[in-house]
């Protein structure tokens, strides 16, 4: 094979890869671009917000940059969600192993009863226990975010055909092999759905966290409500909405493009 044709093949492959990448991820990508544009361009849109609040001196929220607020928001949600995934999936796996099976009914009940608790209430309860600031928010998000993940992981694992598990054991797979090669891949779509629910709730609850002293995209809204400045409120609300939609559409794609889901 000549060098020239080799490069062109490679080139075509890469070009095809890009096209595939773009078509697959176009929706979240568009939302992301919009989110970033507004995050960095908000301060140049004074004219627009002047229409909303013609009488106020300041129409752009300037206490902290929107980029920093977005970063804070993502950080809090990211840390809490990551820990919730690790702990939630871990706990659900632990209580479905022979050693932890005794705990399964209680954990399953707890996860389903816990989801009845409103996330705001959980956030509010975290403050008396842990004080103001970012830490109680992360803990509250983590605790609440655990529930859908635990619940879905349990559902995903118990939804696996008994015959498949039986065959896996009968073929001589070890417990670890069954978990990694059979159970987790088969439960993955359901687990992913749980993570999606958890992250969506976390983004929303984190915003309310602005009332307990965390600085994030909820800040402009709260400050706008306190000061009667609708422009602030709109700025915060638009960015949070875009953030939530970007992340959600990302999960939507992830769920849709699992190669073996059908």
């Amino acid at each position, binding site marked *: 094979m000549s060098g020239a044709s080799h490069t062109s093949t490679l080139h075509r492959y890469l070009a095809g890869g890009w096209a595939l990448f773009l078509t697959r991820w176009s929706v979240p990508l568009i939302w992301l671009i919009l989110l970033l544009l507004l995050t960095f361009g908000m301060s140049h849109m004074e004219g627009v917000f002047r229409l909303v609040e013609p009488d106020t001196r300041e129409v752009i929220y300037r206490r902290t940059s929107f980029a920093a607020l977005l970063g804070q928001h993502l950080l809090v949600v990211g840390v809490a969600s990551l820990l919730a995934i690790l702990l939630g999936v871990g706990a659900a796996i632990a209580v479905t192993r022979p050693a932890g099976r005794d705990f399964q009914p*209680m954990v399953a*009940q707890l996860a389903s009863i816990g989801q009845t608790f*409103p996330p705001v209430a959980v956030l509010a309860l975290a403050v*008396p226990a842990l004080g103001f600031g970012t830490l109680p928010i992360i803990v509250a998000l983590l605790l609440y975010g655990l529930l859908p993940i635990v619940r879905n992981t349990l559902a995903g694992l118990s939804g696996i055909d008994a015959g498949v598990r039986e065959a896996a054991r009968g073929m001589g797979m070890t417990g670890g092999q069954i978990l990694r090669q059979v159970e987790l891949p088969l439960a993955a779509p359901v687990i992913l759905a749980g993570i999606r629910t958890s992250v969506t709730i976390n983004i929303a609850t984190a915003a309310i966290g602005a009332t*307990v002293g965390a600085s994030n995209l909820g800040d402009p809204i709260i400050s706008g409500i306190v000061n009667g400045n609708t422009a602030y409120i709109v700025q915060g609300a*638009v960015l949070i*909405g875009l953030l939530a939609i970007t992340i959600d559409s990302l999960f939507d794609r992830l769920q849709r493009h699992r190669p073996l889901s059908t």
Partner: protein
Amino acid sequence: MTIIPRRSNRVLLCLMLAGVLSWLMLDAVSMAPNRIVPGTPHRAHEVMGWWLSLLSLLPMLAIAALAWRPDTGRLRVALGLLVLLLAAMPLWLAAAVSALADPSMPQARLGIGPALWVLLFLWLLGVIELRTRLGLSRPMGWLLLVPVLLGWWLALSRWLEPLALYREYQGRSDQFISAVGHHLALVGAAVGASLVVGVSLALAMRRFPGLRRAGFGVLNFIQTIPSLALFGLLLAPLAWLAGRFDWLASLGVSGIGWAPAWLALVGYSLLPMVRNTYVALEEVDPAVIESARGMGMSRRQAFLQVRLPLALPVMLEGVRITTVQAIGLTAVAALIGAGGLGTFIFQGLGQAAMDLVLLGALPIIALALVADALLGALTERLRHGGAS
């Protein structure tokens, strides 16, 4: 089904061990001279002495012993002991009040410490575990709470006046009652409206399949937007509308208050309502409908007498999800002046008055749990009462 393993119940053993540790190592109560000064924490043995505090571990140790080689009878006794413990907690608090009370400080406030919160949580987990193992029915589970509530009521009405949470309540009991009423009214109005709109939308979707994709797309989109953002986004246009049209303003519509809250609540409630109604109606076994038609029922009769009753439990499930969700979201709506129990939470957070936060948060959780249980029980009844 009752599954009682012959081995020891490790769940109860762990719970009771953790309970003993938290009783011995964490602060049980705190006493503050007034609302502003932070309280001084006290461990259990500082309140009642080592002997008594060790003695009060006996019920938990007894439960652990019963869990060592469990059978149905022993687990029943353990459940009884747990309920007794839960009912005794307020009485113990009352004892703590009398032990720590200082006549020179009439405004003294008793705070519930981490040890008691942890114990409360662990004991409730224990009740859940035993309820599952013994296969008790839902109503039986609720019946178990009666002595506990009685204990709290008795203690609160007689001896627990210095309890900080109770003091906060007493300071604003009228406000509290009206907040609960307001909260429920808003939830009811939102769920009622979304029930009407949702069911009609679901029916329309069944008739016009084109509407289905678009409808679910929009509703999913709304559901994704965080509550605080949606409240905020509704605020500007509503304020503008109210400024434009006087009759709207005279109805009480404005950028803040109940109007944006109600609209947002309805928006959020539509997705679960429409989805459950649609799925419920679609999933009725076609053979049943066919046989109804085959027996000579008209289309209308088949819908009203067969499809709708069969779909009802799943639709009610939608109402349950919607109601529980709305109870939580209404709390957030307090931020935009919609009133309700959320007001206490955010007031409390603003004043760093944690007991006020609790006064808002605990009833909200209780409302959500009760709504969930009631609607769940109703669904169950409908399921058993003829359907499927």
